[in-house]
């Protein structure tokens, strides 16, 4: 046993320092030198003030803004320090109820729109912080936002296209629209 004790304890401590302190510090130094914006949270600014992160979704419920993915975080949606999904199973009655309520809210905000609702706009994301929606979900909302802002459809359509990322190399991930960036642009360019 004695022959095990010393190597075990000293090796444990030394390798802990190496992998638990030296390594993360080295990565931090490299990250802060070469990728400072990304390493600090991809923050977005407006008039010199930080208004959010390009990677973290915010909650929108006004007609004049595009809405993002529903969020199941507690106690309020898009809580940055309580990430997670609803974890509701497909048969859970509460899931159908939540989706129904979201559809009703969308219809109430835009009674003229009778199209089926793109599924990502009424189901909660995995992280509760999803910054993006599908192009279909953005398209679905254009008329509502246009009406609330007294803009024409074409102007908004162009803006949505500007903020659409297509599928990488044609097979990685999905096409998507960053909601916060789009809404910031709305406020800035199309007052």
């Amino acid at each position, binding site marked *: 046993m004695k022959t095990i004790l010393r190597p075990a304890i000293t090796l444990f401590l030394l390798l802990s320092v190496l992998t638990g302190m030296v390594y993360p510090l080295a990565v931090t130094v490299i990250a802060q030198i070469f990728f400072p914006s*990304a390493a600090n949270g991809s923050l977005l600014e407006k008039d010199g003030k930080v208004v959010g992160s390009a990677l973290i979704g915010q909650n929108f419920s006004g007609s004049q803004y595009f809405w993002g993915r529903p969020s199941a975080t507690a106690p309020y949606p898009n809580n940055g320090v309580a990430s997670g999904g609803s974890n509701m199973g497909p048969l859970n009655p509460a899931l159908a109820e939540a989706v129904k309520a979201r559809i009703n809210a969308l219809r109430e905000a835009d009674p003229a729109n009778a199209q089926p609702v793109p599924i990502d706009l009424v189901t909660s994301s995995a992280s*509760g912080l999803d910054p993006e929606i599908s192009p279909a979900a953005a398209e679905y909302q254009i008329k509502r936002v246009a009406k609330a802002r007294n803009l024409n459809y074409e102007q908004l359509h162009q803006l949505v296209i500007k903020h659409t990322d297509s599928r990488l190399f044609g097979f990685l991930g999905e096409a998507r629209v960053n909601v916060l960036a789009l809404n910031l642009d709305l406020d800035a360019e199309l007052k």
Partner: protein
Amino acid sequence: MTNHAWILLGVYFLTLLLLSKPLGLYIAQVMEGRLKYGGVIENTLYRFCGIKKDEEMGWLNFTLALLFFNLLGVIAVYLLQRLQISLPLNPQRFANVSPDSSFNTAISFVTNTNWQGYSGESTMSYLTQMLGLAVQNFFSAATGIVVVIALIRGFVRHTASTIGNVWVDLTRVTLYILLPLSLVFSVFLVSQGVIQNFVANKDIQTLEVTKYDNPKLDASGQPIKDAKGNPVTEPAMTQTQTLPMGPVASQEAIKMLGTNGGGFFNANSAHPYENPTPLTNFFQMLSIFLIPGALCITFGRMVGDPRQGWTIYAAMSLLFLAFAIGAMTFEQQGNPLLASLGTDQSVTAMQAGGNMEGKETRFGIADSGLFATITTLASCGAVNAMHDSFTPLGGMIPLASMQLGEVVFGGVGSGLYGMLVFAILAVFIAGLMIGRTPEYLGKKIESFEMKMTSIAILVTPLLVLIGTAIAVMTEAGRAGIANPGAHGFSEILYALTSVANNNGSAFAGLSANTPFYNVLLAIGMWFGRFGVIVPVLAIAGALAAKKRISVTSGTMSTHGPLFVTLLIGEVILVGLLNYVPALALGPVVEHLVLWTGH
């Protein structure tokens, strides 16, 4: 499956295939001590630690030393959590973690399970994350590789009394394999948007005010409930969003490469700060299978017959492809109950469609289904979508993937030693069928090896099924269920399956941060890990001591399509069949109810 899903699967598998050989040969070089550089750091470490690198150990000493090293990990992780408020790098001033949760988490990270009863961003200080959890990500991965290398040496050596020096093996794996890969991968992750800093969380003002119902709490912090048992709420509003910060990228890299899977944040690889783009997602998936795939080649190289390694690789690949196609197909089908409400779940150029509850927009269906299959076939357990919200059959894929015993690529090291145990069983059964003494790679498989093989194969199903039975029969166990009906049973079955197979993913609706689950699941994790490692090392010792017998015309070939088929059959029959009744009660019932409507 959509076209881009097929392309994704194809490109993923080809990339994995291309990387496996060079990395596998490199690992063999490292573990056989043929590396030409790095000697100075290594030798300095040995001098400090009083390690004589040429002094080898018998299997018993090797096992004891490894167990003791892992025990130190349990103590360290436990203490870091229990004392974190008094330690530095805790900018959010998180309180000390409760004793039962700390115990569970300590066992969880040491056993490479990384089951998480807590949510990282509101529980763990930066110091606990990096010096406790991330260090175990390295050590538990190293432990797995060290064990499989010892088992391979058992086949390679003959009439030998030792299987290697555990300290040297642990050091080499950490220094030459895990650290360099993690360093490269973490810098790539940062470049894509994964955060890496030591500052406190940032409060920002959001564009809109969020109105919500805030649950009222009593004096002890418990939610107040009305006469019907619904929580009492009061209207509230906020215009503040707190952005989490921390050293995420460095931990994320080893979390994936070491098939650990314990997220810095609660949402794990679904969190945009852990996995921000489809590109990071692709490389995260790749990093899960990277080392387990390469180790097959290492095995072939070390036993001196590359075909043996490729045979194992082929068996794993076929099972992987079948499961992946299943998961991506089932999730794309969507939820019939939501279709009738007036939603559009179809696939178009404009949207992913399908079952989007609990999935991220940037990953959609294909990238989520593939990730779920990979993370559960390997004992990784990181998630980029919430498995609890998968369709019944889509959710059965991850469940069954774990129940195969984490041998399809599997955890780093543990996947291959698990598969080699199945290979031993396969030659034994084939030997019985044709009436010959079973042998594998020139070693006779005899009574002792078969006893150890039986223990290694049976310990996990026993833990899963007995644990599930205990949980569903007790009040404390049923209290954790979040979803009604058959799905609630699936949540418990998933939890026990996940911990005993050292996976760590969850049907996360289950409230498992209770003393009951923290203790039950910790027992499952510990014995699910070391209940396999100890018999495997015993087999290694026994094989090393045997004489090598020469190949004759009567020797059964253990490479080629026939053996691949035998191995796959063995894994499915022995691994999965144990669970069929339990699966019938959970996902199968649920599937029938969902699609027939009653």
